């Protein structure tokens, strides 16, 4: 895996001393640390609640991919821009600024959840942060996200649509129908392909005739680049460049972000399609939080500062779990609400 990642426009952990690598202030790095650790601790806890039977159905964890959502979010104008993703959505929602209590309570199917318990893990939305879901059909969010970009252009409001999808979705036909229209009409869409190497249990080599996903827009004239998704600064900078183009009316852009999911596809993953050694190697050598810790050390952040953040995050997650326990299940009368908007 480490070999497969062609670090095209990004740094690896060892590059921190090279002058041309991305820079960030200590304050920024601490903020990234807080957000990435929040996602990881939240997801670990969600996995645990699932095992206890408090979360039902499907539950797809984002552990390992934290640097992607956190790096992209730096370019999002909250409440103005729009974000849309597939079913592995908890990390994107937390990065977008959604309330962890509402996300966790949605996972447990409670009235305090962001969809009143009626959506679940794959179907959450939040208009305040511009988060448009949370979609369970692989690839559907790409056409929908292109429509969000269309609305921005129709209104002429310079908003951008951030459209996340995976290496699996990148083989769906509607992705290319969307690419075609996005470039034809110069829509402000940033397509972020989170290439975590596996579409459920099928590796990208076994599912894709070409594995350089940043090239997938080439036949439509959409430029793309490959980014190290384990390096939050590389993601931040590549996204900022793509967004500047889009806001200037230059149309869509593809970011193929190379990342890795530590956990199974969902909670019932037999883990037979990749070796434990492969997973351990990534965890040991490319972990996005460990990489960020090195940047923090170089920026002279202290152990105490990190510890304080760890404790803050622990308290946030504990509160979310408690809220998700205590929030009641939806009243039976909710069964028939929100089917139609009353005209």
């Amino acid at each position, binding site marked *: 895996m480490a070999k497969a990642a062609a670090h095209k426009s990004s740094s690896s952990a060892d590059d921190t001393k090279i002058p041309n690598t991305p820079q960030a202030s200590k304050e920024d790095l601490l903020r990234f640390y807080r957000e990435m650790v929040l996602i990881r601790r939240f997801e*670990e806890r969600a996995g645990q609640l699932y095992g206890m039977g408090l979360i*039902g159905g499907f539950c797809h964890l984002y552990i390992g991919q934290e640097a992607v959502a956190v790096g992209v979010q730096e370019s999002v104008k909250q409440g103005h821009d729009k974000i849309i993703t597939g079913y592995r959505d908890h990390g994107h929602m937390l990065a977008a600024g959604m309330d962890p209590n509402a996300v966790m309570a949605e996972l447990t199917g409670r009235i305090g959840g962001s*969809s009143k318990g009626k959506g679940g893990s794959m*179907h959450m939305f939040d*208009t305040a942060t511009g988060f448009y879901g949370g979609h369970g*059909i692989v690839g559907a969010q790409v056409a929908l996200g292109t*429509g969000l970009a269309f609305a921005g252009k129709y209104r002429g409001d310079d908003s951008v649509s951030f459209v996340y999808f995976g290496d699996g979705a990148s083989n769906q036909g509607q992705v290319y129908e969307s690419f075609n229209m996005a470039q034809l009409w110069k829509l402000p869409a940033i397509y972020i392909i989170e290439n975590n190497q596996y579409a459920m249990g099928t590796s990208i080599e076994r599912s894709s005739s070409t594995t350089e996903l940043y090239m997938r827009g080439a036949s439509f004239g959409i430029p793309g680049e490959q980014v190290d998704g384990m390096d939050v600064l590389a993601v931040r900078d590549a996204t900022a460049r793509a967004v500047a183009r889009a806001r200037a009316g230059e149309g869509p852009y593809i970011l193929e972000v190379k990342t890795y999911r530590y956990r199974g596809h969902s909670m*019932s993953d037999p883990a037979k399609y990749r070796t434990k050694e492969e997973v351990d190697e990534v965890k040991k050598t490319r972990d996005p939080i460990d990489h960020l810790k090195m940047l923090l050390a170089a920026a002279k952040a202290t152990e105490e500062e990190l510890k304080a953040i760890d404790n803050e995050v622990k308290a946030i997650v504990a509160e979310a779990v408690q809220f998700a326990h205590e929030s009641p299940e939806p009243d039976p009368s909710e069964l028939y609400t929100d089917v*139609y*908007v009353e005209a």
Partner: protein
Amino acid sequence: MTDILMPALSPTMEEGTLTKWHIKAGDTVSAGQVIAEIETDKATMEVEAVDEGEVLEILVPEGSENVKVNTPIARLAGEDSAPAPASKTEALKAETAKAEAAPAAAAAPAAPKVELRDPEIPADAKLVKTTVRDALRDAMAEEMRRDDRVFLIGEEVAQYQGAYKVSRDLLQEFGERRVIDTPITEHGFAGLGVGAAMAGLKPIVEFMTFNFAMQAIDHIINSAAKTLYMSGGQIRADIVFRGPNGAASRVGAQHSQDYSAWYAQIPGLKVIAPYDAADAKGLLKAAIRDPNPVVFLEHEMLYGTEFDVPEGDDYVLPIGKAKIRREGKDVTITAHARMVGFALQAAEKLAEEGIEAEVIDLRTLRPLDHETIVESVKKTSRLVSAEEGWGPMGVGAEVVARVIEHAFDYLDAPPLRVHQEDVPLPYAANLEVLSLPGVDKIIAAVKQVMA
């Protein structure tokens, strides 16, 4: 002190094997650290510590089989922030069981009784002979003048002026920002339309025919119809999907299907299938103004037919209200779209034989106005439904079921359904005629229920 509990790989797992411990008493663990491995016959999983602290005791040794879920397997020193105790899980399960039993009590709240009526047409109103095609065009043009959020998108809607000329002159009036030709990519542009609707616009998505909308049906149902519910009321898809539906003439099976029953089954959608030009105009305007996703089924064979339409740009009809097209006391015939015309012709011929049929134009299929049908059957005691689509699981099946539910005691004969033969629509002219329902089949069915 914190107990680490035996986790489950899935909510259905009850027990598993604790294959390996990565920690021992006296170790200090941190949150996220892999501490053990468990397995079932289906899968294996690493167990991560959720809390940090010193391991006081391993309670279940590695290699133990049939360890029940939620059994304490190790004990940590540290604050009592602990995973929820198993007893709480049980309590929650009990709550869930209670809630599952509850829906009967919560059964569909009686919908507020709203009297839906067509607007009164003033006696001095001017009626203008208009084709269904132009009525649809006028509806879109009037609504686009009224609201900048409304736009039309689809194949050949702009420069070509519409594959069936329904969007004639709209490009000239509204420009290419609001009348948008798409590539031939139904799945993509339907999804794009739904996304634009989620962002607050009011798209009209034209399908050249609804046969091609099968490429897009995922977005119509999964993305448009379900999102309001799945978002707890936050995100709406204020969109109209429209275009010709059903049989044309000699175009073969793939271009000739009636999708009425498909869409009418979906909660979250409204489904409209008008017959005449006035309804086409008044209901399309209502569909565009309605904040919900609406599937608007037109009929190619009616586009060129002229009907009277009240003059003016504010003729808006209520969605969800059937119309009694002809009054009669002997038998009720329900129909929608093109079948209404056939039902009316059948009623004329039946009248010559002394049978007075009441013809109800359903107009809206979801929500279905069964009150009007039931009231009619209470009067006539006989029912024939007519639809262009296939019979099994069809619109007629639903109409009959509702009548049996609400007016069983009034029926004097088993209701009958008229529909297309249960085959893909053939090309050969004679076979096509044999396959499609028409006036003769309706008359035959009426005579059977009168016998």
